[in-house]
């Protein structure tokens, strides 16, 4: 009996052995690790690293040391990241060495580097306004900034009172800002739809949080944050569903892959998708939904409704950052999507985008006419500007890309500067944003009023400001790209827009100051620097735009 058993045991051992040996024979099969070009992704990685360090600072440094360390960390991180961008561009990654990195997830090319550079610089300036601590009167002897003492405390409750008394400040805003910046850096470089979606969420979630952190008028701020979150989630759902439909259509989520299918060269058909692949209804519906998700972020009509409420409720430095940097990132992603993925179906999306651009320009300009709050006014102005930029996007020419790049660079600094000025004009209740309070500001504080006038003139597109150069470039590209009627509408909308910009100037300089008008706070060098940079960029890009136009022109080619 033992024999068979022993035979069996031997047999089993042999089987095991053969299994081992056969596995050993088939090996060495390794799981392939993804190939990541770390150096080329360094701008994003540096910012992410700085953000993580910022979280550690919050955890380990004593409260007193946090503010200064966070500011230094953010500034150094962003500066290093900008240096990395410049190094990459100098190395030729913007032009002839442009390619797709990280296994097809991210593009390293001219538009991506240009927009990343702009986003980083804008964020750097935004950090200055975030760090400003001289505008609000000190609470219990401690300097405070625009942000709430303790975000989780109920407005007006005991917890809040204790937090204020204890002199707490929300220094977490800096790492949160850096996370948002990291997402924004990925967004215009994203080369597949999933990366696009992840990047969108990475920069949106921190923004929702930042919006709810205002020190004054906390309920308004929290309402803004909730609205932004709800509507943002709603639009993300559309985006995600659009991505799903596009995957169903193309069997892939990479831009190049989808573009190939759109172009008619279908590679191998995935059997699971055989019934849907190449179905144009999926392509059109999915494309429209993805577009909608991006149009929400740029604030185009009819997906703009969140903009005024959120701009008004968010702490003003956050509004400035959001208005400037988000727009740059979102337009970058939109450009890449339309120029790389969907050029083959431009006859489908162009008429639709025409309509969106026209209503965006007109509604933004018209509704701004009756606004009475500076921040809401600037919000509608940003909607109108989104329309102007869309006109350049629609051009579908290399000039269109470069003009949009230039416009974004010019516009973001003007916006940031304008919102920085808004933080300076204050009365007992904090920032005095009602326009009636700005009457006669030019008599009381000629310098501040003059600086704001420069920004307004740039918004209006008056020559010798960056606004004129940008608008001219965009309209020229649009006209050459066959969208002349769009330019006519754009010019009409600009005329309407000029009215409300100039009206503020008239109000500031030609009205009698009110007796109990607001005062202009004297800022620390931080905000002053931010405003000075804004003015300098506005004037330089207005007086001598050619160098920067050339730069944008060189960076105007997408890698496919």
């Amino acid at each position: 009996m033992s024999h068979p058993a022993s035979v069996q045991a031997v047999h089993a051992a042999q089987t095991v052995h053969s299994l081992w040996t056969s596995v050993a024979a088939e090996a060495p099969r390794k799981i392939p690790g993804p190939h990541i070009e770390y150096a080329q992704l360094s701008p994003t990685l540096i910012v992410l690293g700085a953000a993580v360090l910022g979280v550690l600072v919050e955890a380990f440094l004593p409260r007193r040391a946090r503010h200064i360390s966070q500011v230094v960390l953010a500034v150094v991180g962003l500066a290093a990241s900008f240096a990395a961008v410049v190094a990459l561009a100098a190395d030729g990654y913007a032009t002839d060495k442009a390619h797709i990195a990280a296994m097809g997830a991210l593009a390293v090319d001219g538009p991506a580097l240009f927009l990343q550079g702009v986003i980083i610089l804008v964020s750097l300036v935004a950090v200055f306004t975030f760090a400003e601590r001289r505008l609000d009167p000190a609470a219990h002897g401690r300097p405070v900034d625009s942000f709430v003492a303790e975000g989780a405390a109920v407005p007006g409750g005991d917890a809040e009172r204790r937090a204020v008394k204890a002199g707490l400040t929300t220094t977490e805003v800096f790492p949160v800002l850096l996370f948002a910046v990291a997402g924004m850096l990925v967004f215009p470089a994203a080369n597949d739809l999933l990366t696009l979606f992840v990047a969108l969420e990475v920069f949106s979630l921190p923004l929702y949080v930042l919006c709810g952190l205002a020190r004054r008028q906390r309920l308004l701020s929290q309402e803004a944050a909730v609205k932004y979150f709800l509507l943002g989630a709603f639009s993300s759902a559309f985006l995600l569903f659009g991505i799903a439909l596009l995957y169903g259509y193309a069997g892939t989520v990479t831009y190049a892959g989808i573009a190939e299918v759109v172009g008619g060269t279908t590679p191998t058909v995935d059997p699971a998708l055989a019934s849907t692949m190449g179905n144009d209804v999926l392509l059109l519906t999915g494309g429209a939904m993805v577009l909608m998700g991006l149009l929400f972020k740029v604030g185009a009509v009819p997906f703009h409704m969140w903009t005024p409420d959120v701009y008004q409720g968010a702490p003003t430095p956050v509004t400035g950052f959001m208005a400037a940097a988000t727009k740059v990132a979102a337009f970058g992603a939109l450009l890449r999507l339309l120029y790389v993925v969907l050029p083959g179906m431009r006859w489908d999306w162009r008429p639709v985008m025409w309509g969106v651009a026209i209503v965006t320009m007109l509604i933004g300009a018209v509704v701004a006419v009756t606004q009475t709050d500076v921040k809401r006014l600037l919000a509608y102005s940003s909607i109108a500007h989104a329309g102007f930029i869309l006109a350049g996007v629609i051009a579908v020419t290399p000039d269109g890309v470069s003009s949009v790049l230039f416009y974004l660079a010019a516009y973001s600094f003007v916006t940031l500067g304008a919102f920085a000025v808004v933080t300076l004009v204050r009365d007992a209740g904090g920032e005095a944003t009602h326009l009636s309070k700005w009457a006669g500001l030019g008599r009381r504080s000629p310098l501040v009023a003059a600086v704001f006038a420069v920004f307004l003139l740039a918004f209006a597109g008056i020559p010798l400001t960056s606004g004129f150069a940008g608008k001219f470039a965009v309209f020229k590209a649009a006209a050459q790209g066959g969208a002349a009627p769009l330019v006519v509408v754009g010019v009409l909308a600009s005329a309407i827009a000029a009215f409300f910009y100039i009206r503020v100037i008239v109000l500031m300089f030609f009205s009698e100051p009110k007796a109990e008008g607001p005062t202009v706070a004297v800022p620390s060098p931080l905000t002053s620097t931010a405003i000075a940079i804004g003015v300098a960029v506005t004037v330089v890009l207005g007086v001598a735009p050619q160098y920067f136009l050339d730069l944008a022109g060189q960076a105007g080619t997408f890698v496919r």
Partner: protein
Amino acid sequence: MENLIGLLVLVPLLGAGVLLCGGRRLDRSGPWVGTGLAAVSFVLGVWLFADMLGRKGDNRALDVTVFSWVPVGGFRADVGFHLDQLSMTFVLLITGVGSLIHLYSVGYMAHDERPRRFFGYLNLFLAAMLLLVLADNYLLLYAGWEGVGLASYLLIGFWQHKPSAATAAKKAFLVNRVGDMGLSIAIMVMFTTFGTFSFAPVLAHADQAGEGKLTAIGLLLLLGACGKSAQVPLQSWLGDAMEGPTPVSALIHAATMVTAGVYLITRSSAIFNGAPDAQTAVVTVGAVTLLFGAIVGCAKDDIKKALAGSTMSQIGYMILAAGLGPVGYVFAIMHLVTHGFFKAGLFLGAGSVMHGMNDEVDMRRYGGLRSYMPVTFWTFGLGYLAIIGFPGLSGFFSKDKIIEAAFAKGGTEGWILGAAALLGAAITAYYMTRVMLLTFFGEKRWQPTVSDSGSAAEDGNLPHPHESPKTMTIPMILLAVGSVFAGGLFSINSAFLKWLEPVTGHAEGHSPVGAGQVTAATMVVLVIGAAVAWQQYGRSPVPVTAPRGTLLTRAARRDLLQDDFNHVVLVRGGEHLTRSLVYVDHKLVDGVVNGTAASVGGLSGRMRRLQNGFARSYAVSMFGGAAVLIAATLLMRAV
């Protein structure tokens, strides 16, 4: 050599800059600085002239491009100079007579409060005028043209504390603007026709443009010339411009500004040669103006205004000659030069008389001055003989040739033009004799002047005429020498004709009347004119207050109703036009603008209500938007 041409313009321009910006330190030395720089430019001119004489006929022109001024695409404007015999003539006249007038002004303006500024303006004027005649393209010429207009405005209104002077300056400026528009449009038409506005290519290719284009350009150039040269119908500013200091009158009305129109037409000869209609317009303007100015000159009692009428008339002669084409160009310029001498001399003489007579200008209050101011009398007298064309003096040679050329035009036209020129000569003799007799002969009709405080002193303020200082008499003597000999020198061996012919071209006319007969006729009308004047003002006493006079006299005193005409037609018409435009602006334009604004505002108010603050409404709007977006995209494909 070429570099000196730029220097020619730069020196007086530098003077203007230094004097106008130099501040009080230059108050005392200013007049001499200005005069010195004018003299320097004259010396430069003479140097260039000597150099030019050293070269042969066709090689005499010098061209130099200093820098590219406005290079925009196909549009190219350079700052470049062209110095040929024509511009050389002007350079010598402008700097020579200009320097003498500077020198004279040192004495004349000695008691003024702001001599530094005055000399700064004079230098500016010289620089602009030199730029005008030296430019090698029409655009740069236009720059000089405008510069002259500016400088003349500043100089005519130099005593701007007098309302009359300020008004006169404004009037001169406005009337000149009309002419300037003509010139600027002419330059634009030129650019569209030839693609350039440099003299050389434009004039070389003039015959390739159609006659219609050439006529249009010619008429527009004529309009410009009328403005600067005070020709009918843009003549009205000249008489009022006498409000400026007398040296200004001499500089503007004798040597420089008013001759710019003649220069322009002569320079553009190729254009006019190809446009007979434009030429007819030119001779018509010239003939009408020479009679117009002469008649006005007869009736004026103000010595400077009488001379102003005379200037208008003499420029009329030049324009007439220039309109005759190659027959007349050379004589137009020759008369221009001789006129530069004697008219400058006459104006400076008039200034000298006024200087001695407490700034009195009414000739009826002069009389018997010849023994009190001998130098002024003799120099003025020689200028007088020259202008009426007394045989052997400058005016005789040049004017005689113009009358001859007018007859040579041929046909009825020739007879009409010749007759007008002859009649003009008769009237010239009349009014100049009148001026001479009223001023220097007869009994003294001096009146006490009203002092500044407004009280007429009994006799304490009676003028004490005296000879002027040396700085004033020396220029007068030099100009008198020119008035006597210039014409004769030019005519020896047809020297001037040969000098200028390579530039302007020349053709001998075929006069139906012999040269001798023309000269004889001129002499006869000259004697008649002078005799009538002597009959009226020499033999019978002259009343101090002017008699009422005939209808024509009264009209001539009012400048032949030119201002009334301008007032009724242009001012009233303009007022009506502007009023109706304002009405249209208020009702129609403002209505549309305000209506648009109101409707935008209303729309805005209604649309902002959509922004109701509820996230749910926003979400609905987004959903609807997405639905529309998808539907539209699908629809596009379906279509």
